[in-house]
């Protein structure tokens, strides 16, 4: 190979190498960090006996990080509504689908009412009025060995 040809190839290779390195670094830099697809993790909520026979029951929970078996990095406390419509038992998240306020159950009206913008849901979680775009989120609920487990996305 003539020297000129060799040097031409060398320079070409150098440019290709540089371009590839820059392309890889750029893509890696632009790729977002902290991507974690959230899956349901089941927590022992309460005894089977505590399930409502009919209607809505508010359950306050507190899951301790040190008793969660490494599922939690810190204590998790909150509210979940267990609904029994005589056909099915399911769990409703109290997070309003409008802007994320916590709805409360109004026993007299038999509705979930959001204190922030007056969003209203019936006991199935379906929107009755106000700004919410979607029904309340249903959380998966299972009963095993007499204990009630509810899945949370953490």
């Amino acid at each position, binding site marked *: 190979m003539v020297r000129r040809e060799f040097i031409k190839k060398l320079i070409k290779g150098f440019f290709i190498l540089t371009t590839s390195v*820059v392309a890889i*670094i750029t893509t890696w*830099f*632009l790729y977002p*960090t902290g991507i974690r697809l959230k899956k349901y993790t089941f927590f022992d909520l309460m005894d089977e006996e505590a399930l409502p026979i009919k209607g809505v029951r508010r359950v306050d929970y507190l899951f301790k990080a040190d008793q969660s078996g490494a599922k939690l990095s810190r204590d998790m406390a909150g509210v979940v509504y267990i609904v029994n419509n005589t056909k099915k038992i399911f769990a409703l998240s109290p997070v309003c689908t409008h802007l994320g306020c916590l709805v409360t159950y109004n026993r007299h009206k038999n509705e979930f009412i959001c204190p922030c913008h007056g969003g209203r849901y019936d006991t199935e979680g379906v929107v009755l009025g106000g700004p919410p775009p979607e029904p309340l989120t249903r959380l998966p609920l299972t009963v095993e060995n007499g204990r009630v487990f509810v899945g949370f996305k953490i």
Partner: protein
Amino acid sequence: MGKVFDWIDNVFHVKKPHRRFLKRAILPDGLNYFYCLGGAAFTSYLLLLVTGLLLSMYYVPSEHEAFSSIVKIQREVHLGWFIRSVHKWSATFIIVFILSHTLRVFISKAYSKPKELNWVIGALTLLFAFASGFTGYLLPWDQKAYWATEVGTSMGGTVPLIGKHIVYLIRGGVDLNGATLIRFYSMHVLWFPLCMSLLLWAHFHMIKRQGIKVNL
């Protein structure tokens, strides 16, 4: 690669009129490594351009989020610390290279007629480089950046008669605040790079037209 370019060039016809420039022999005898300083400065400029484009993907030019976005770039973004370091060091080196390039031009009398306009363009580029450095220094929005800019902008106040108004103009208000940050950000990422790119194009165009002066 060549085939793809030829396919495009069949329509565009850029190769033929530029052949004189692309295949010219501009390098006279008597060159040495000091004639690379301008090229080194331009390489720094390209590095600044590329890393700056990348950093602008994560930087938030707002009073409340600027500093935390810098922290995020440093700690969370993949290779963020690296890209930011390259930007910072290139910014330091471009000043060093431009100044030594200026010295080389001065020593080899390359500023003399007929290349005096290129000296003027080069001097303007240096001023824009200084201005970019000054505006870029504020963007991290930490204590050092804030007070450096506080001192730097208040120097404008020493101009007789209109000094006060110059300070207000630079700061975008009486005090240094979010308005100043946005102003400096816009200057740093839009106005100055645009102006510098045009100036550098003129700089190189004149070298192509007039050649390199060796006079040592």
